[in-house]
């Protein structure tokens, strides 16, 4: 059986920072509502690929960074990213890593939980009322997942277990 290791030191951090960058591109257009939260995809990816190295601390810090950058309630994204990392590790244990379709089911559940948590916290600050548009990134996540999963594959390499 093979196991995965990060390709270089800080690969996980780098991939998460790239995801934060993707979240904050100074671009906009009508397609923007479909864009997923790239950090969530990256966290799910790492939870599936090297779950013993997944650190919730990382998710927490990245979440606080996101909160600061997007002026959301401090701790909102920290909380939801930690949930994403934890749930995807726990759910990832229940499925075989090779089953591609199972990944979609996991992603659907995890992104759903993430968005629900955010919606709940947002309602505290009265940022609700986007209607069904709010859920568009859920579809976007599923569509873009294979590509991002493949892209993040460059950040780790397989290692033979003795």
């Amino acid at each position, binding site marked *: 059986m093979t196991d995965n290791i990060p390709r270089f030191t800080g690969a996980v951090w780098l991939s998460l920072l790239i995801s934060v960058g993707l979240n904050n591109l100074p671009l906009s*257009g009508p397609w923007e509502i479909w864009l997923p939260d790239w950090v969530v995809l990256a966290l799910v990816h790492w939870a599936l690929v090297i779950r013993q190295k997944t650190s919730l601390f990382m998710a927490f810090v990245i979440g606080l960074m996101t909160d600061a950058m*997007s002026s959301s309630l*401090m*701790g909102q994204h*920290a909380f939801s990213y930690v949930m994403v990392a934890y749930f995807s590790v726990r759910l990832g244990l229940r499925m075989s890593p090779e089953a591609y379709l199972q990944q979609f089911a996991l992603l659907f559940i995890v992104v759903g939980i993430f968005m629900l948590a955010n919606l709940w916290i947002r309602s505290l600050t009265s940022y609700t009322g986007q209607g069904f548009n709010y859920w568009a990134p859920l579809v976007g996540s599923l569509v873009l997942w294979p590509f991002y999963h493949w892209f993040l594959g460059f950040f780790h390499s397989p290692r033979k277990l003795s």
Partner: protein
Amino acid sequence: MEATINDIDHHSTPGLSFQFVVFSLIALTLMAFDYFDRTSAPEQRSNIIPAVRTGFNMVSYPLQVMVDAPFKMYDYTTAFFADHTLMLAENEKLRKQLLRYSVKYRDMQILEQQNERLRALMKAEKRPGYTFTMAEILSAAENRGRQVVTLNKGTRDGVFEKQVVVGQGGNIFGQVIEVTPFSSNVLLLTDRLHTIPVRHQRTGMKALANGTGKPTILDLKSVEATTDVREGDLFVSSGLDKLFPPDFPVARVLPDGVQYVPGSQFANIRAEPLLNFDDTREVLLLWRVEPIPQQMPAAVAIPQPSANVQPGLQAVPEREETRTPETTTPATNTPPQEPVGNDG
């Protein structure tokens, strides 16, 4: 299930659950504090959460610069390889524009001097002037429900909280909500929780323009159904909030934007901001040069307290050839057209 956990990973899972609980609790505590901060009165606010926020904003600044770098490079390279004739044409156009604006500017200076004299005669308060600095938008977090962008100027450049930001053509863009030494976050007019007091340019009627979260629509609240608002009407800032400068254009009423609800006292008005928020990459930060003097009810107070007060009040602003809007005071003596005169 136990077997699955065990044969893949022996040690991390128990610790993971513990970590999860700890981090969730920390995050929830932070949220509670931040929420308390946001909802409580300004004097009760702690400064711990803003400090944490500023810290993380500073940490993320290099990242934002890096994200922005490819765009900047693209702009630079396209500018570098731009067609020479195109550039010449553009240059020509800009030169003409500059010439026209400098003449207008001269005219405006005369008007301003006149205005100041008239205001002095009427013992009205002096009109404040403004200076500007250009800032670039580094990143936008608009897909998170809030309309917030990050600028590349911070306290180091004199930016302060609640500073007004103006976009292309002098249209109001938003206000600064957070500042770090190098960067600042700006809340756009179109944010769902942003409201700006406006004035109907034609009738002078006051209203409030609320953001809707969509970059192309503002909702106008508390407009009486009996007032005369038509499509294409312009709304300018009223300045009643003492934050936004008065008479800056804000929004134009959309076609079919005025809807009367039977039985309702107010009309539903949808207007389009004059700025294209999506395309804006550069904005102007606005500084008020001369804040309005303290004697607030000047018009009422002055007639009564006899002639003693009046000269005193008046003496200060009396001989002010140096006018407020430009910081460069000598500009009044030397014509500002000099650079234009050379190329024209």
